[in-house]
């Protein structure tokens, strides 16, 4: 007997071919009833299949535009902005401007990048399911460009693929994209002209479509958007190398590297959604949240049924994917959230350095220092604390830059941020470091307790 599955709507009963009449009648009756049932099931499944796997008819009538805080709770793009709009004759009109700009990844590192409306990676487009949108794209680059709306149902000619679905937007020109939204979820947009260069230079962003009829559990208290990306910026250089296929040394959330990433501030007990997108050139990123077990609630703009939602502490973000995760922030504290690839949470880590772990320096400092004043042997115990030694490094570089934490120098960087959960908040501005209740911080074990517990060192 073949297994019924969602794709097989030609299911037929199987069984012994030699049947008695009673059995035949039974079978016949059963068959008749089954046929009715089957016919109904086929219709239901056909409907469910259509709605699940199709954007529906493109000839959909536009509905009224939605307004933030009236029809939907706006998302928060840490370190970013939401693209403003205006309503013109019932159409939500956006103006996306692609241009070159100076972008600060983290204090100490600025580079010439490309972005939209003055932001790199961090201009979020927010729209409302069913409304008609009109997006004017002005190209202020010296190269042609176009914009692809990643994951969105739209007329093929609006898909934004240069030379395939449209002509490239020449420098200085403005093209118009327009269609009626017939879906909701987390999507992205990015250049689709010379994508290696233009995505690599920063022409990417998140595209959020809020549901017109949200489900009961759709509402959250804090709705964050984070675009993941990676860059290769040689130490001391001031422009990303978009030819790189590996050796990315600056990893970002919304175009910023920790400690330049803004924390996600949440009040204890609030329901939190974080929408991730990954348009890195080459790498997937397993994003890990400390302290919580979240659910992955949507993939690439489509909600996962509750029963199928995948519990994780780490969500693997493949290149080109979006994922929504949700959790209840019921544990106060500073909960770090970061890519779990260890090299992705260091700023401008150099890979040309020899493996110095375990090397006994002896009189190396004296021998080499005589030849090169200012030399100091490094790395014998790892990379920690390198940045705080205060050694002179090339201008405009942040090698192994971290930040001062409440318990010492924190050497993390890159694709790293902190979810700051507080019982009391006067605002959602950075509340500073968490003040731990007494007795809840790991510290040196008292000798008496060790003795009591039979711990011998």
């Amino acid at each position, binding site marked *: 007997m073949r297994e019924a599955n969602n794709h097989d709507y030609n299911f037929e009963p199987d069984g012994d071919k030699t049947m008695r009449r009673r059995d035949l009648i039974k079978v016949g009756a059963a068959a008749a009833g089954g046929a009715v049932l089957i016919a109904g099931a086929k219709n239901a499944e056909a409907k469910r299949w259509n709605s699940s796997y199709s954007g529906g008819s493109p000839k959909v009538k536009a509905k009224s535009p939605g307004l933030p805080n009236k029809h939907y709770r706006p998302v928060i793009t840490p370190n970013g902005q939401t693209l403003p709009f205006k309503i013109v004759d019932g159409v939500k009109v956006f103006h996306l401007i692609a241009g070159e700009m100076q972008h600060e990844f983290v204090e100490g590192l600025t580079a010439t990048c490309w972005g939209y409306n003055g932001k790199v990676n961090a201009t979020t487009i927010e729209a409302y399911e069913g409304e008609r949108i009109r997006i004017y794209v002005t190209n202020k680059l010296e190269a042609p460009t176009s914009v692809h709306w990643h994951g969105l149902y739209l007329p093929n000619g609006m898909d934004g693929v240069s030379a395939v679905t449209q002509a490239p937007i020449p420098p200085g020109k403005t093209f118009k994209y327009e269609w009626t939204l017939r879906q909701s979820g987390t999507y992205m947009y990015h250049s689709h002209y010379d994508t290696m260069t233009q995505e690599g230079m920063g022409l990417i962003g998140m595209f959020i479509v809020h549901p017109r009829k949200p489900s009961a559990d759709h509402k959250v208290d804090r709705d964050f958007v984070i675009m993941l990306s990676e860059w290769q910026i040689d130490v001391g250089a001031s422009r990303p190398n978009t030819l790189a296929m590996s050796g990315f040394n600056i990893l970002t959330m919304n175009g910023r590297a920790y400690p330049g990433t803004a924390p996600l501030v949440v009040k204890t007990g609030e329901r939190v959604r974080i929408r991730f997108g990954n348009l890195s050139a080459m790498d997937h990123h397993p994003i890990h949240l400390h302290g919580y077990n979240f659910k992955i609630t949507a993939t690439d703009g489509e909600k996962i049924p509750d029963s199928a939602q995948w519990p994780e502490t780490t969500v693997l973000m493949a290149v080109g994917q979006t994922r929504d995760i949700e959790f209840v922030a019921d544990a106060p504290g500073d909960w770090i959230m970061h890519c779990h690839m260890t090299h992705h949470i260091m700023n401008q880590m150099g890979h040309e*350095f020899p493996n110095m772990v375990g090397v006994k320096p002896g009189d190396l400092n004296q021998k080499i220092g005589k030849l090169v004043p200012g030399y100091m042997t490094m790395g014998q115990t790892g990379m920690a604390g390198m940045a705080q030694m205060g050694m002179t490094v090339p201008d405009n570089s942040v*090698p192994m830059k971290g930040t001062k934490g409440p318990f010492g120098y924190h050497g993390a960087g890159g694709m790293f941020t902190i979810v700051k959960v507080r019982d009391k908040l006067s605002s959602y501005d950075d509340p500073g470091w968490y003040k731990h209740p007494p007795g809840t911080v790991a510290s040196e074990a008292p000798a008496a307790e060790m003795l009591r517990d039979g711990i011998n060192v």
Partner: protein
Amino acid sequence: MYVATNRPSHGRPTISSRAYRRTRNLWLSLALSSFAVGCVPSQQAAFSPIKSQVAQRTGFEVKWSHRGADDPRVRAAIDAMLAETLTADRAVKIALVNNQGLQAEFESVGISLADVASASVLSNPEIDAELRIPLTGSGNSVDLSGMQNVLDLFALPGRRNAAMAALNVERARATGAVVDLVAEVRAATYRAQADQQLLELRRTTVDSTGASLELTKRLHEAGNITDLALAQDLLLFNESKLDLARAEVHVATSREHVNALLGLSGADTNWSVETRLADLPEMLVATGNLEGEAVDSSINLQGERWQMKAAAARIGVAQLQAWLPRFGVGVASERESSGDWAVGPAVTLGIPIFDRKQGARARGHAELRQAQKRYIAEGVHVRADARAITATIKEARARALYLRNTILPLRQRVLNETLKHYNAMSTSPFELLEAKRSLVDSGAEYVESLYDYWTANAGVLRVKAGRMSGATMQEDRPMPSDGDEGGE
């Protein structure tokens, strides 16, 4: 010589006073002439023009010392100079008093001086005496005559002029030898200084490869790198030690070159040289009219001019001898067997029938033409040399300036930036040490450029002092390496 006289009645012989006076005057004039024309310059007088020429051309004092370092004053002067750090000028001063090869050159002047002396005196008079004893009869007869080659009187100035010209040729040669020695000592001292500096730089290179090896060994001990990486660094270190050994030999040989030029041996060779070559001066030494200066001051051309004068003087002598091969005057006297003396003048005259000094004249003319052509050839060479040394010093200075003002600062900047990248851990300590070695290599290149400049400068001074610099001699040029052919 005894002159027979008619004995007067008082017993003493007398001669007619006119004849006596004539004879006496003749001999007196001959004697005086020999004194007059035989005036030869003294050794010091012969050397004095050399001394003043050297002082004028080089600024240094030179002495012709027969005793050399055995002279306590010379010894004391040498000791005082060796007690201080050897500079180029100090080395020149030592060489000018102590280089026995130079002193040998001065003896050539002495030899020429002797030739002048020989050319400045008349040939000796001749006395001819015959005694004839009759085989029959009685009464001996005596023939007595004295002759003086008077032709010398006419030929002597020409001979002397030729000898003086030859003396001046030797003076020019000796002056040239001094100028050459000054330039060679300067160049040798610069080489010794440069080699000492290069030795220090090679020691720094060995320190760098040694430090690199030390780090490699420690990495290897920690298990962090391969045997191959360790072997590669061992090789680098040992190759640098080889370069150091070569540098040490260069120091030794360049010191010995200085010792040879300064005439030093034994304990005198323990001098120390100024360890750094002087920086480039603000201005290049004037070379605007070096070609003209070279021609005007050329000792070689001067020598060739003296050669032409000597040849011309010799032609004059030969031409005189061609028409008058021999001319002598004297007195002849005869005592006849009767005992009567007869006396009278005597003349000897050579008849130019067969030997009209054709060979000597032809030789003289050929020597003159040879000297003329050598003069012209020398002039061309002097001019070319002046132009070549001008180009050489300009290039050497430009190269040294470029290395000092552009390359070395860039190398230092690369080292500084590499240290920053090392601090950022984006480059390894090996690259840092390699950047240091590249700086040292550029430093060595700069030292060589300074050496090239200062030797070229010595060459220019040599040309201004009247000798050629040798800049037109082509050195072996290095063949391009394999990497330069065809590219990769």
